[in-house]
């Protein structure tokens, strides 16, 4: 019985960390049952990921913004505006895609740095500074699309970013493998890397005498996560494989996870969020961190703009509406704390998937849009209540 006792203990101790995974699992299970399995179909999963992508990258950037105790309301319409600029550059100025994408990304970074300048240099509260940005970018979006209305993008390469799939490996003689081989290969590499990483980390912790999970629980965790990864890989490989959007999101989350957990910059960002004064006195420039975090937020806004514009294959006058709030909601569902210093990039990705699954599932079931908003609001409230109550017990 020690196994179940251990399991109970581990779950109770880590309920905050595991809570959102459990939530995602429960939501997906419920919709799978309610839609007779359509929800978990390869096609729907693929769509879900592509639809969540442009919010997920915003949520990743927003995580860091909230971690340093700030907020950015301007990102939605900034993304809309930058999407319009991308469309205009391609359609009216006839710039090649290879130039348009870095150009838009650069504009995003500059926009983020402007917000940071208002916040760090003038000391304006980020809520107000970025609310001004919200108004300005909305106005600019309407301005640049005023003459044309919706701008249709004819460029196939650009449109593939939001709709296309990574082509398969042209390996002859492997035709007996059913499905998208590259996706299967990446999935296998991912699973092996995960298992090795976990075992290695556990060994190191033991060597230093830190507490580790009991062996049985550890194996259970490995098997469970590896199984989930395998399932996702298999489902995706059975359809068109990995979409470009999914690949971009994975790379972004991977890079941001690495930065936040393994680098000096990441440590500094979380220290500034946890206690700005102590961080400053420890030789960390809070202003510099503010510039970096808002610059990264601008970059993510631009990436979101590219993903969204490409997905719609056009720039519209209302693009980006409410993106900022979806991203903030995703970050909170993913466990960031408004008090600063707490949050994880991966958590926010899960948060975005939770919110995305709700929309996707309810759409499949034909739930009216009005009730969709209510349901999303309730889930957000529940997530934050859960967070607050488990935190109190932990402290």
């Amino acid at each position: 019985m020690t196994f179940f006792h251990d399991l109970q203990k581990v779950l109770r101790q880590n309920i905050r960390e595991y809570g959102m995974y459990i939530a995602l699992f429960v939501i997906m299970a419920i919709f799978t049952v309610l839609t007779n399995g359509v929800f978990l179909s390869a096609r729907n999963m693929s769509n879900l990921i592509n639809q969540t992508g442009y919010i997920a990258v915003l949520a990743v950037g927003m995580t860091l913004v909230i971690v340093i105790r700030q907020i950015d309301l301007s990102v939605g319409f900034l993304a809309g505006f930058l999407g319009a600029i991308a469309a205009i550059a391609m359609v009216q100025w006839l710039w090649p895609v290879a130039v348009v994408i870095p150009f838009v990304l650069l504009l995003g970074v500059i926009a983020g740095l402007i917000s940071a300048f208002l916040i760090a240099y003038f000391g304006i509260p980020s809520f107000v500074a970025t609310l001004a940005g919200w108004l300005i970018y909305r106005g600019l979006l309407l301005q640049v699309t005023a003459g044309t209305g919706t701008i249709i993008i004819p460029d196939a390469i650009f449109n593939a970013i939001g709709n296309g799939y990574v082509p398969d490996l042209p390996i002859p003689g492997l035709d007996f493998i059913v499905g998208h081989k590259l996706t299967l290969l990446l999935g296998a590499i991912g699973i092996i890397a995960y298992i090795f990483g976990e075992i290695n980390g556990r060994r190191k912790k033991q060597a230093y005498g830190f507490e580790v999970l009991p062996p049985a629980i550890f194996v259970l965790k490995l098997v469970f996560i590896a199984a989930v990864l395998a399932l996702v890989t298999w489902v995706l490989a059975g359809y068109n494989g990995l979409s470009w959007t999914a690949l971009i999101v994975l790379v972004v989350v991977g890079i941001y996870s690495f930065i936040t957990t393994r680098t000096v910059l990441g440590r500094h960002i979380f220290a500034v969020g946890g206690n700005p004064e102590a961080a400053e006195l420890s030789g960390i420039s809070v202003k510099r961190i503010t510039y970096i975090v808002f610059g990264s937020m601008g970059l993510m806004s631009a990436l979101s703009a590219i993903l969204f514009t490409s997905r719609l294959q056009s720039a519209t006058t209302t693009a980006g509406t409410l993106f900022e709030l979806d991203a903030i909601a995703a970050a909170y569902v993913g466990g960031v704390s408004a008090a600063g210093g707490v949050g994880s990039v991966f958590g926010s990705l899960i948060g975005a998937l939770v919110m995305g699954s709700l929309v996707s599932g309810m759409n499949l079931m034909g739930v009216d849009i009005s009730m969709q908003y209510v349901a999303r609001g309730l889930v957000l409230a529940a997530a934050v209540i859960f967070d607050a109550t488990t935190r109190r017990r932990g402290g």
Partner: protein
Amino acid sequence: MSEDIILDIQNVTKRFPGVTALSDVSIQIKRGEIHGLCGENGAGKSTLIKILSGVYPYGTYEGKVIYDGSELKLEGGSIRQAITEGIAIVYQELTLVPNMTVGENVFLGKEPSENGAINWDKLYAETRDILRKYQLDVAPQAVVRHLGVGKMQMVEIAKALSENAKILILDEPTSALAEAEIEKLMEILETLRSHGVTCIYITHKLDEFFRITDSVTVLRDGKTVTTQPTGNLTKEKLVSYMVGREMKERFPKGNRRPGEVIFEVNDLHAIDPNDNSRHVLNGVSFDLRRGEILGIAGLMGSGRTELVTTIFGEYGKITHGTIKLEGQEVEMTSASDAMHKGVSLVPEDRKRQGLVLMQSILKNISLANLDQFSKFFRIDADAELAASLQQAKNLAIKAPNLLVACDSLSGGNQQKVVIAKWLLSNPKVLIMDDPTRGIDVGAKYEIYKLMNELTEKGVSIIMISSELEEVLGMSDRVMVMHEGASTRILDIREANQERIMALATGIAEN
């Protein structure tokens, strides 16, 4: 005789899962006396206060508390009931609303009103009456933000007294006060005593027990060791009751041999960076030798903290004067700049300025020195851990492991983490701003020992302290500050409390 006793704590035991915080504690407190409560951190003082204020309500502890003749039965959830019963607490951390006036703060939550509108005249008149009755020298209309810490404390006391408190519990009221303000507080307590208010007085500063209390109860490991009239006690006795053994000396003897001058400050003037008209330093000069401890004494607001944060490049704008490190004139523009040049600062307030409380010991120790462990921005976790473990071992930080969050540590251990962080940068000059504030006798002793070890290795220490005994016990020389300027540097052999106070208050010029 029994009507003398206002508070009779009888065999109180309070258990938490795994720990017994109080075991069989009995204390009798006489009406109108000032009763000192003494003990190291973790001895059970705060648990006792939480029982008296209703944070741990009636029924969650064993034993009885007889208050004013009947058993005290507080419900949980709010300290409101304790206040209505007449038990008020002045906390170490002040709990005032800074942007409100003194009167508004005193009557916060119980504003006198007529038909839903606040009667401001009545509020201020009553505030004035309370302040006058207990000779508290604050203006009812003053905005709290503009008051010094000492005056804020008075407002706290007025707030407690406005509820007709019979027992006033003061939890380390002087930890943020300078000598003159402490003197004033002692006068206020005398006034309270003459008005028949009973006080329970908690402090880490032993001399205060002898200055003000009528009797003292010592707690150790959740048990009452003794209750005695203060007149029967000596400091040495008190310390031995607290730690449970004889402690021969409070300040360990170091084997210091100060060498050549390593750090010089010459006629430093500086202004507040946010307010150019405010002069915070008006001519400070001193030198510091290798392996020396230079104590800086001065009242709150004398510019002690401003001096060190200005040197450290984090606060004042230097308008005149020079700073020399190892003979070279230097300018430190930020904390990281100062650190790279070999100057480190253990800041005044460890929770606010020293630590990221929610993060682990490991992350806090390495925070200022991550460059040492990183290649191409990536942190080498093994190197980080090894270096932090070494520091934790050298400083004898007591914790289950280094992944424990700092907010669960005791004050002394937290301070050690802050010191460890700065030692990792191998400073030549270590500035310590009130390094033992609010930590218990045992941890203080360990920090003093550490300071001795560092100076023996050639580190030079500048130590600011509000406790004169500490300044006298640890320094080689003492610089006294008054109104933003250095007055005189006394050799330890010519320094004593009276001389320092005379210089600090401006009574003596030299």
